[in-house]
């Protein structure tokens, strides 16, 4: 049981489960210590001082976790800051997720919002219509189509002032079996089948299979065999 709150003005409830985990709903403003959850849903403003393990974690409010998060399913339509690492089977990001730790590991990441990490994202499948900022994105199938139309671009522009971001995704290294990019700035892209679309700026591209480059993309050097 983890609801040892130092101050708690919210309508928060923690319901114990049979397996020792708890289900939690946080609607107000709460600090808690972390722990193991079945389902954890945050609609208010919450800070967890410790690591969190959850089958399903939903963030619709503002959430800060001072440690790592391990989740079966993570859904964030609010703003989440994770000061440790993030490990999840599925991540669906419609809001803003900022990971301060060194890595994100997942089976699948879907990002229609903004996902930022200084370190590496490793996932089998990555699908982004929003923005991803990372030093490395690696996996099997990576598709990043960052574009200006969405509501989140407006949010992104706001963020840009505070975190110095640009109007496209920025990644140092992208490596995957299949890569499909639009609106991405990267230093190096390596893959088997690689598609570089419009509004991309890539220093070095290398493909061992098929390589398609949009004429409007800025490419330093391209290599395919």
């Amino acid at each position: 049981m983890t609801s040892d709150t130092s101050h708690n003005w919210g309508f928060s409830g923690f319901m114990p489960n049979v397996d020792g985990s708890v289900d939690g709903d946080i609607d107000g403003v709460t600090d808690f210590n972390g722990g193991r959850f079945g389902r954890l849903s945050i609609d208010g403003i919450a800070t967890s001082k410790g690591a969190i393990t959850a089958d399903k974690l939903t963030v619709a409010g503002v959430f800060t976790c001072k440690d790592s998060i391990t989740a079966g399913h993570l859904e964030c339509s609010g703003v989440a800051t994770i000061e440790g690492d993030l490990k999840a089977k599925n991540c669906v990001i419609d809001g803003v997720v900022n990971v301060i730790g060194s890595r994100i590991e997942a089976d699948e990441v879907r990002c229609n919002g903004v996902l930022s990490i200084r370190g590496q994202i490793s996932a089998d499948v990555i699908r982004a219509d929003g923005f991803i900022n990372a030093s490395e994105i690696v996996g099997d199938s990576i598709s990043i189509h960052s574009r200006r139309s969405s509501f989140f671009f407006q949010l992104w522009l706001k963020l840009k002032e505070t975190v110095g971001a640009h109007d496209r995704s920025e990644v140092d290294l992208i490596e995957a079996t299949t890569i499909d990019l639009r609106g991405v700035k990267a230093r190096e892209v390596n893959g088997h089948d690689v598609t570089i679309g419009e509004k991309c700026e890539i220093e070095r591209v290398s493909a061992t299979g098929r390589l398609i480059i949009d004429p409007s993309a800025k490419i330093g050097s391209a290599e395919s065999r």
Partner: protein
Amino acid sequence: MEEISKKELLAITGISYGQLYRWKREGLIPEGWFVKKAAFTGQETYFPREQVLARIKVIVALKDSASLEDIRKSLEYRERPRLTGAILEVMLQRPEAARIASCDFSTRNARIDTWVLVAGLIDAAVEAGIVEEQLLRLIEGALAADAGGDPTTGVPSVVGASSATGAQVSIAAAGEDLYYLTTSDITTLHGDANIRICASRQLQIYWDRARAFSAPAASETVADETIADIREATNEKGQHHDL
């Protein structure tokens, strides 16, 4: 040690980026084998050549018949350190270690944390000037208590405590010929003036030595046929998305 670049590795084994990174995530390929080095193109990742090729051969051979989780367990089992008395002797540069290691407990306790603890104990015992018979009694006692646990006192098991970060083992004397060992901090020893610490050892250095031994043996050389095997196995699948 001979190294292989990531690109070369993928090219000669025929595995995909997706497979490589998935296997890394699943713990099948140790993170420590990914070594980043500056290259004229920016940065390139290198692997210990023989180890990584041998590992990929095993994974490729098993991946269609077993889950990645099961493969990871089986790899852990296969590569569990088998520290013989001779290795322990080398670890400690002490001939008596081999004799101690050949005692009865060694056949019952093949776990690495046991060996680390025993290695630290032997060094400490020599410093403390404890006779071998006493030392054996200490070891036997610690391991017996560990096997059975000690529910009455709730004291954590000695072997279990040895894997904690910064763990140490100390031999304390509580009178003539009466010794016991502790992994707890010296200051927590209940202020009894008759108890004094004879010798203690940080266990980290023994962990380091043991891990050096537990790396796959270099004698498992990877001949060209290994690479041919991997290629054959990957080509049978004929595609790159097959994780």
